[in-house]
């Protein structure tokens, strides 16, 4: 019954961590690469299970719609019923694949880490295990454990290998996330003891979505609003949504390049995924409340506009990319908040697209930083002359983030905007107003991306960058797959993403509506 495929994907990096800790120093990098590659190859094994079959989830049966479920009893004592239970559905599986891809590329991008590489790669692999666990866990307790497991390695990766203000950034990241975790813990307690699954309490995320399993929640409005709010804050810290976003620029700027890739590409997705996996299916009544939709929608729009405006004002290249992340993740929140099919699909697509483009952008910034040792946009310029190949790849990456049609960023944004235009939940006019405001960001995004491209790559070659080496083969190896994915997702959105996610998303939407 258990296929062990997901389990092996999750724990291969952990095994890698153990191996990294004992191998001789010159083999550390290769060992880490081997294990991330192994995880990636294994995760490709999920793909056949999702080809050709329409995906339905959350059926009456436990595993209907969830593939590759591994289930083992973990703690069954003193009234607890906690299982080790992992499985993937349409929204989990693309994120698992994204995780293994980005981690593989980030591992290659980490090749030039020189400061205690053993610790670095050990924590890196631990982080990958945590991320994979979050995207596959089907037991709330297990989800929480993996959620927290991503916290510790990230704290040290920023704090030890980060930039000059790394201590501050690391502790800020830690605190914000732990605040969210604490609230999630309360909700977890609440759900567990309120649940009644055939006479027993349960942590099972699938059972919790079943109507009637949380009897008290069906009648007490205040209860589900309270739980929804606490969960929302936990996830909003990760997305990150205004006003919980302030850790992000610090953390991104201080983190080393590969860690920024993972942070932007994967960690932020934990928030959006959490909303889709836990908040909306388990508390559908709360999600359907107009005030909730308004709040989330407005916060999403604020994120979009505020992030874009801040990005426009930055002179630090990495900070610019960080704020653009905030702006792009705003689309995820907006798409989810307004409860339309197109919005949900757009949000999910945007998560994956942003995973690719933000990883690419952070990597591109890192490439420049390695060469010129600063990220000050006004001091850069004319790099196109010295580094033509790099410039080509960079422009591809940045345009993908900008939302140029044909590249991946476009699809997500346009779907979200389409969805929010059609939304019913805010009355006839409200959603349209939000849509129009959000659409303004397209101009802003184009503004800061084009402007920075112009300032960094175009213009006359500056003498101080004479002889800056061109992008290396290893760096192309990282960038090329990201570029290819950006094009593939942009050209074939249905075949690459929507076909997998739509069934699951429709089902979640059905629960809410």
């Amino acid at each position: 019954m258990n296929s062990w495929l997901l389990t092996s994907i999750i724990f291969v990096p952990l095994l890698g961590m153990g191996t990294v800790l004992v191998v001789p120093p010159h083999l550390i990098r290769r060992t880490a690469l081997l294990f991330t590659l192994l995880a990636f190859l294994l995760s490709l094994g999920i793909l056949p299970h999702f080809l050709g079959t329409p995906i339905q989830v959350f059926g009456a049966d436990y595993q209907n719609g969830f593939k590759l479920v591994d289930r083992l009893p973990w703690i069954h004592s003193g009234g607890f019923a906690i299982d080790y239970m992992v499985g993937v559905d349409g929204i989990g599986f693309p994120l698992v694949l994204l995780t293994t891809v980005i981690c593989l590329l980030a591992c290659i991008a980490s090749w030039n880490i020189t400061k205690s590489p053993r610790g670095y790669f050990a924590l890196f692999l631990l982080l990958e295990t945590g991320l994979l666990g979050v995207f596959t866990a089907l037991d709330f307790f297990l989800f929480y454990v993996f959620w927290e497991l991503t916290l510790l390695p990230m704290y040290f990766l920023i704090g030890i290998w980060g930039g000059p203000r790394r201590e501050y950034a690391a502790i800020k990241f830690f605190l914000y996330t732990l605040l969210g975790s604490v609230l999630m813990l309360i909700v977890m307690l609440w759900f567990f003891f309120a649940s009644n699954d055939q006479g027993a309490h349960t942590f099972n995320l699938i059972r919790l979505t079943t109507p009637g399993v949380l009897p008290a929640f069906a009648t007490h409005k205040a209860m589900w609003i309270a739980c929804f709010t606490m969960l929302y804050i936990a996830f909003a810290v990760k997305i990150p949504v205004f006003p919980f976003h302030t850790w992000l620029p610090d953390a991104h700027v201080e983190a080393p390049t590969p860690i920024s890739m993972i942070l932007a590409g994967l960690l932020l997705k934990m928030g959006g995924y959490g909303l889709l996996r836990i908040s909306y299916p388990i508390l559908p009544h709360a999600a359907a409340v107009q005030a909730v939709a308004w709040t989330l929608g407005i916060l999403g729009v604020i994120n979009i506009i505020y992030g874009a405006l801040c990005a426009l004002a930055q002179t630090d290249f990495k900070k610019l990319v960080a704020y653009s992340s905030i702006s792009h993740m705003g689309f995820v929140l907006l798409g989810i908040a307004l409860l339309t099919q197109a919005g949900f699909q757009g949000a999910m697509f945007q998560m994956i697209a942003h995973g690719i483009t933000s990883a690419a952008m952070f990597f591109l910034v890192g490439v420049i930083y390695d060469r010129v040792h600063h990220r000050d946009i006004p001091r850069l310029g004319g790099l196109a002359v010295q580094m033509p190949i790099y410039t080509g790849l960079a422009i591809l990456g940045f345009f993908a983030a900008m939302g140029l049609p044909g590249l991946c960023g476009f699809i997500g944004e346009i779907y979200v905007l389409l969805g929010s235009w059609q939304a019913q939940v805010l009355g006839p006019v409200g959603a349209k107003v939000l849509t129009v405001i959000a659409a303004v960001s397209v101009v802003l995004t184009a503004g800061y991306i084009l402007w920075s491209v112009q300032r960094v790559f175009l213009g006359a070659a500056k003498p101080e960058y004479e002889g800056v080496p061109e992008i290396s083969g290893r760096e192309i190896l990282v960038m090329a797959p990201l570029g290819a994915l950006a094009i593939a997702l942009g050209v074939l959105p249905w075949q690459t993403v929507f076909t997998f996610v739509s069934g699951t998303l429709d089902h979640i939407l059905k629960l809410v509506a």
Partner: protein
Amino acid sequence: MDGLTPEHLRYLWPVLALIVTLGAILVGALIGREGSGRRGLLAAALAGLILAVLLALRLNPHSALRTPPSGDWLSRYLFLDPLYRFVIIYLSIFLGGILLVSNSLWRRPTWEWPVYLCLLIGSLIGMILLASARHLIFLAIAFEMASLPSYVLVGFRRFNTKSAEGAAKYVVFGAVCSALMIYGISLLYGVTGTFDWEQIVLRLAVEGVPPLAVAALVCLFIGLAFKISLAPMHFWCPDAFEAAGADVAAWLSVGSKSAALLALARLAHILLPSISPGIRDHAILLVAVVAIVTMTVANLSAYWQTSVKRLLAYSSIAHAGYIVCGVLVLADTAGTAAIVAYILVYLLMNLGAFSVTGLIEAQNGSDHLDNFVGLGTRNPRLAAVMTFFLFSLVGLPPLAGFAVKWILLSTLWQHELAFVVVAILANTLFSLFYYMRIARAMYFSSPQPVPSLQLDGGSPLATIQVPGLMVAVLAVCAAGLIALFLGWGLLNNLSLSLFAT
């Protein structure tokens, strides 16, 4: 004499073994040449502890000999239930670990070693009996038996100003609290005419609780709260821990606190369900407020500390505040079980953290936070295990500190004490700050030579040598924290089984 049956005698054997060990060490020290035979005495002490554990293991884990005091001799003074057995095993093993650590850290003249061992074993006997006492005079004596050696142990580093001062503060504070406790006992005796806790409770349940008995119970609580270091009886704790050696601090932080906690839990467990709901609610509220104040004050004070032992002392006060919340839950045995599970894991975390601190102190002559700077590069393994202990103290998965906090929180939540849950979680957030200061020092700050801290010509930046026995202790603690997280169902089962009767 009234019935001292072999069955009851078996319950006495472990304690007798410890007393004999104590005597043997004294005699051994007298016979042996002064200043020799440290290893032999250590071996004797460990053998005595192992013997006590083995004898305790032979006890029937399920029989609860709570017969009336007329029935036999021993159960007149002690609750001879599974918890008694647990306390012997738990504290003896813990003291074994402490002795291994002490042996590694020992820098004092050899002739002091047997005194040290005897004091530790003496306090162990006191703690075991304190945790199980049912006869209040016996409880008071056990309390002193646990306290007096502790006072001396804190001041053990003679002619050290800090140590002498810490011991003086500790003994004055302790004397006041124990005197108040004894006054409370005398009042309870007057109200009920007996010293036996079960009969006292019976009397109070039948005849109601007069105001004088309330005053008496508060006095009793003050005494135990002193040992547990609940606010406002916690002031001794940072002073004493900073004054004491790291090993003694570890012993006190876990040993005396858990003994008093178990005593409190046991007394409350019998008392509170029997008395009228009005008084019970007030008692619960009182304990809840004390617990919340304790954890908040401790966590807020801890941030400013630069002495790591002092910081860990505040951490132990905060944890005492968390653990005592288990007393709030009376409807079933889950509350006490949560306490047992927590102190089990707490032992591992604190023994580990204090041992590492002791190593640093032994190396550099001070436990100032600066001495931890750069430990991440100087000795990555030591820094890694210290990080384990710190994160477990914060209560983060995947370490056992999270599991026990979870057990405690879920127990509280089930009994609709959500405000306590919120207080504990908020305090967990606060506590992150100061635990992270140690982690930050170890990893984030770049090591810089601190000339003033050099001792014995050794540079603070030199790699720290960890003695073999210490490696074993630290490895067991760290591995235990992961194992008990993965298998915390076992932990839960074990602690629940102690109250299965």
